[in-house]
C-alpha cells in the first residue's frame, strides 16, 4: 500500500507526459500536488516538515534556474549577433559529411563540454548548433541528451564521482575503476544510439568504424587517467581523446584535404567562439584558483516525520559559488562576447532588447515546471517515499537485485535531474544491499553512479533545458519518448553486466569480494 502510494507521483508524471501527452507544466503541477497530499496524509510529513522540504526544493530549483536563464541568454546573444552562423559554416568547412558532424558533435563534443562545465551546458550549446546545421530538432535534442550521458559521472570536474565516493566512504580510485567498467559499456551504447538516431540500423553499421576504435582509445585513456589518480580530469581527457581520435579516423577515411580558408562573416571564427572558449577557460581557471569560499547557501534544521523518518540538518544546502557555479561563468563569458561585438562594430542596442525579451519568453514556462518537479523530488525524499520505494524493490528482487540495480540510479536522476543527487539518494543504499548480498560493494556503487549518469538524459531539468534550447517547449513528451528506450536498454545491459561481474566472475575490486 505504502509502496504504491510512494510510486504514485512518479506514475502520474510519467502517464501525463507519455500517455496523455500533457505539457510538462501541467504534468509537473499534478505530480507535485499528488506528492504533497500523499506525503502529508500517509507519510506523516507534517506542516513544519513540508515547509522545509518545499523550501529545499525551491532552493535547488534556484540553483538550476540560474544556469538555464544565463545559458538561454547566451544562446540568444550569439544567435542575434550571428556568431552561431560563423561557427556553423566553419564546422561545415572542417567536416563535410553530415553523419560525421552529427556523431562528433552529439557524442563527443558535448562530452568534452560535460567534462568541463556540465550542469546542462552541453545541451544548451550543442543542440542549437546541430539545429542550425540543418538537423531535425527532435533528433538533435535526443542525440545530445543521450550522446553525452555516459560522461556525466566523470564530468563537471568529477562532482558526481566525488559524491559517490563521499556517501559510500569507499576508496576513490577503486570506485573509479568500477565506474570505468560500466562507463565503457555506456560509452559504446550511446555512440551507437546517436548513429541510430541519425539514420537507423544502416547508420549503426556505418558508425561502427568510428564508435569502436574511438571507444577503445577513450577506455584506455579513462583507465590511464584513473590509474594516475587525476580524478577531476577523467571526463575531460577521455572525451578530448575521443574527439581527436574520431577526427583522425575521419581524415584517414574521407581524405577531405586541407581545409579552405576559414569563413568569416561580420566576426572571425575566434571572435564568434569567444563566449564558449571563455566558459572553458574561466571554468578551468576557477577550478585552479579555488575561490569556493565566495558563495551563498541555505541552512535547514533536522526533523522527524510522524512515521519516524529522520531527515538530517543541512548547514550548506544548494551552495551557489560565485566563482564555480556555471551561471556567473556564463554571464562573464556573455559580457566578454558583448565587448567583442562592440569592438567589432556590430553592436546594436535593439538586438540586446530582443535577446532579453526572448530569454524571458523562453524561460517562464520552464521555470514554473522546474520548481514543481524539484519540489516534488524533495517532498518525496524528505517524507521517506523514495526510500520506501527503494527498500520494497530490493526486498522483492532478492538475489536478482543486481540485475535491477541500475534502475535506481536512473530513477534517482529521473526524479532529481542530477547524477550527484541520485548518488546522494541511492549511493549508500546500493552499497548496503551489496553488503547484505555478500557481493563487491565497489562494483555496485560504481554501477549506481554510471546508471545515474545515463539517467540524467531523462531528468526533467535536462529535458526542459533541451526543450528550451531547441524551441520544443511544450513538446517534452515527444523528447521523453525518444530518449526513454535507449536509457532503459542500456540500464538493462548494465544490470546484466553487473550480475555477471558479481555472481559469475566474482570480480574483486578494492580488495573486497
Amino acid at each position, binding site marked *: 500500500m505504502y509502496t504504491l502510494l510512494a510510486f504514485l507521483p512518479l506514475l502520474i508524471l510519467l502517464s501525463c507526459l507519455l500517455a496523455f501527452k500533457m505539457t510538462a507544466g501541467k504534468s509537473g503541477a499534478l505530480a507535485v500536488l499528488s506528492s504533497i497530499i500523499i506525503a502529508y496524509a500517509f507519510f506523516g510529513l507534517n506542516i513544519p516538515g*513540508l515547509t522545509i522540504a518545499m523550501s529545499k526544493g*525551491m532552493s535547488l530549483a534556484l540553483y538550476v534556474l540560474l544556469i538555464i536563464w544565463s545559458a538561454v541568454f547566451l544562446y540568444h546573444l550569439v544567435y542575434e549577433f550571428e556568431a552561431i552562423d560563423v561557427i556553423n559554416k566553419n564546422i561545415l568547412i572542417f567536416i563535410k559529411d553530415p553523419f560525421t558532424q552529427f556523431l562528433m558533435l552529439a557524442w563527443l563534443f558535448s562530452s568534452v563540454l560535460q567534462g568541463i562545465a556540465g550542469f546542462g551546458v552541453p545541451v544548451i550549446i550543442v543542440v542549437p548548433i546541430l539545429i542550425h546545421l540543418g538537423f531535425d530538432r527532435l533528433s538533435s535534442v535526443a542525440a545530445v541528451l543521450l550522446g553525452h550521458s555516459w560522461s556525466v559521472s566523470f564530468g563537471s570536474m568529477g562532482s558526481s564521482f566525488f559524491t559517490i565516493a563521499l556517501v559510500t566512504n569507499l576508496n576513490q580510485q577503486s570506485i573509479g575503476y568500477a565506474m570505468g567498467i560500466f562507463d565503457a559499456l555506456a560509452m559504446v551504447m550511446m555512440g551507437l544510439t546517436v548513429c541510430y538516431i541519425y539514420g537507423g540500423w544502416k547508420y549503426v553499421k556505418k558508425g561502427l568504424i568510428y564508435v569502436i576504435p574511438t571507444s577503445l582509445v577513450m577506455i584506455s585513456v579513462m583507465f590511464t587517467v584513473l590509474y594516475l589518480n587525476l580524478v577531476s580530469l577523467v571526463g575531460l581527457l577521455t572525451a578530448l581523446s575521443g574527439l581527436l581520435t574520431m577526427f583522425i579516423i575521419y581524415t584517414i577515411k574521407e581524405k577531405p584535404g586541407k581545409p579552405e580558408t576559414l569563413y568569416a562573416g561580420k566576426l572571425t571564427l575566434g571572435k564568434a567562439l569567444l563566449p564558449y572558449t571563455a566558459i572553458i577557460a574561466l571554468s578551468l581557471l576557477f577550478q585552479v584558483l579555488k575561490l569556493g569560499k565566495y558563495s551563498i547557501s541555505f541552512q535547514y534544521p533536522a526533523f522527524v516525520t510522524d512515521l519516524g523518518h529522520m531527515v538530517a540538518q543541512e548547514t550548506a544546502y544548494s551552495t551557489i559559488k560565485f566563482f564555480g557555479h556555471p551561471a556567473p561563468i556564463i554571464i562573464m563569458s556573455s559580457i566578454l562576447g558583448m565587448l567583442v561585438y562592440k569592438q567589432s562594430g556590430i553592436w546594436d542596442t535593439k538586438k540586446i532588447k530582443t535577446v532579453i525579451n526572448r530569454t524571458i519568453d523562453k524561460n517562464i514556462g520552464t521555470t*514554473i515546471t522546474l520548481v*514543481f518537479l524539484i519540489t516534488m523530488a524533495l517532498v518525496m525524499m524528505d517524507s521517506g517515499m523514495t526510500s520506501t520505494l527503494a527498500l520494497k524493490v530490493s526486498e522483492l528482487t532478492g538475489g536478482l537485485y543486481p540485475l535491477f540495480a541500475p534502475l535506481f540510479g536512473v530513477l534517482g536522476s529521473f526524479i532529481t535531474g542530477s547524477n550527484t543527487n541520485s548518488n546522494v539518494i541511492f549511493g549508500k543504499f546500493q552499497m548496503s544491499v551489496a553488503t547484505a548480498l555478500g557481493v563487491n560493494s565497489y562494483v555496485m556503487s560504481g554501477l549506481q553512479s554510471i546508471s545515474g549518469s545515463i539517467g540524467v538524459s531523462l531528468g526533467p531539468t535536462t529535458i526542459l533545458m533541451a526543450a528550451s534550447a531547441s524551441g520544443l517547449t511544450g513538446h517534452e513528451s515527444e523528447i521523453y519518448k525518444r530518449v526513454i528506450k535507449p536509457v532503459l536498454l542500456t540500464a538493462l545491459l548494465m544490470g546484466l553486466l553487473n550480475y555477471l561481474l558479481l555472481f559469475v566472475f566474482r570480480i574483486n575490486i578494492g580488495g573486497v569480494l
Partner: protein
Amino acid sequence: MTKKIAVLLFIPIFLMLYYASNTGSTALGTVGILLFIAIAVSQFIR
C-alpha cells in the same frame, strides 16, 4: 494567473517557506504551502 505572475510569486513564497523553516513558524509555512498549491492548481485554469 499569467505565467509571469506565477514566476514572480515564487520569490515571496520561497522567502516565506525559508523563513518559516528556520523559525518554526507553522502559520507562515502554511500560507507559503497554500500559495504554492494555488499556483499549481492555476495551471489548469485558463
